[in-house]
């Protein structure tokens, strides 16, 4: 039971933390809870579909279908997170003042909350499909697997709770610095996801590795340890990164910073 709880906890954790960060970062977007919940619901449905068609996805593109699928999903998340950040750079100041005057009607921004929907959708679908597949296989095993299933549900609850705590923690950040901090979180998150995508693209044989192991810090901080895994999700920590992952990480960060700067400049002119 405990083993199953841990497996499901780890599957749910990434999606849960990503959702916590975007929920925090979008705190002044009206109707965000609805968009994010919609994304989660679609994500669960998508996860079930992916689990059902897992075999077919695997055999697509001469066996690299799964890696390609993961890479595309991750890059979609990176694009949406980047879009969110760039948009925030133009509106963040105003939103800070809006939060301060909570009584006033928050002006509807131009960010289609669709970004929120897509981010939560892909975050849940990717990790969720593994959770669904796993629980399904256990459930198919029969009645004596009930402790395993309850363990799995316990793990899912614990993962969701971690996200909740992160969200509550984020809300304690003083309003003045709030969007600076959440933008920074999202920047690291997006860079980390881009590095993961690079790993999957290399797995599919589409990009060279540019060095299999640029450094090795697995003895210092093992990536499968709890701290290592948390850092892997939040800032993209990789114990033995490939050159291409570092390249993706840094270029994502650079491009986003540049776009955010440009967006800020164009706001000043306007």
């Amino acid at each position: 039971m405990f083993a199953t709880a841990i497996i499901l906890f780890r599957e749910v954790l990434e999606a849960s933390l990503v959702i916590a960060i975007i929920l925090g970062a979008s705190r002044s977007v009206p109707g965000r809870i609805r968009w994010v919940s919609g994304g989660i619901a679609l994500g669960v449905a998508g996860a079930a579909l992916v689990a059902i068609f897992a075999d077919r996805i695997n055999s697509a593109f001469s066996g690299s279908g799964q890696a390609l699928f993961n890479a595309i999903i991750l890059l979609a998340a990176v694009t949406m997170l980047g879009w969110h950040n760039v948009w925030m750079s133009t509106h963040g100041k105003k939103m800070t003042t809006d939060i301060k005057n909570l009584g006033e009607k928050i002006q509807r921004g131009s960010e289609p909350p669709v970004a929120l929907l897509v981010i939560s959708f892909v975050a849940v679908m990717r990790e969720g499909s593994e959770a669904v597949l796993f629980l399904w296989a256990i459930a198919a095993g029969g009645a004596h697997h009930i402790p395993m299933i309850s363990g799995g549900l316990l793990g899912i609850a614990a993962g969701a709770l971690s996200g909740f705590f992160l969200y509550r923690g984020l809300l304690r950040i003083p309003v003045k610095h709030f969007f600076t901090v959440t933008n920074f979180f999202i920047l690291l998150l997006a860079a980390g996801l881009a590095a993961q995508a690079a790993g999957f693209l290399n797995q599919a044989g589409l990009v060279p590795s540019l060095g299999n192991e640029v450094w090795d810090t697995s003895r210092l901080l093992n990536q499968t340890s709890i701290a290592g895994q948390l850092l892997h999700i939040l800032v993209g920590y990789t114990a033995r990164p490939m050159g291409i992952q570092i390249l993706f990480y840094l270029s994502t960060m650079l491009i986003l910073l540049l776009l955010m700067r440009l967006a800020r400049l164009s706001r000043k002119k306007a």
Partner: protein
Amino acid sequence: MTVRRMPISGLLALLVTCSLFTSKVSASQILEIKNQQFSPMKLTLPQNKKVKITLKNNDNLPAEFESTDLSREILVPGHSQVSIYVGPLDPGNYKFFNDFNQAATGLITVPSSAGAN
């Protein structure tokens, strides 16, 4: 804002170009999962070659082949198989495990051979 229009086609073109430069698969190996264990538990792969590993999961439970050493992470549903491409690798040891049952581990060894470039 032009940021919204992600140049997907450009990205794909880049990927295709890149793929031309990645090395061709030059060896293949079979790895199986039986009763929640890898078999064989130790694989020896050639140096500096791209290798295709066919992983067959004979169990009912799904497994996730994962190697932080190789940056590989592949889900294998019960009673099915997947292809895993690794390399070209430098000589050394690379651990892998089943992320759904971390007691199941294995090792890829790449011996250094004087003959390989």
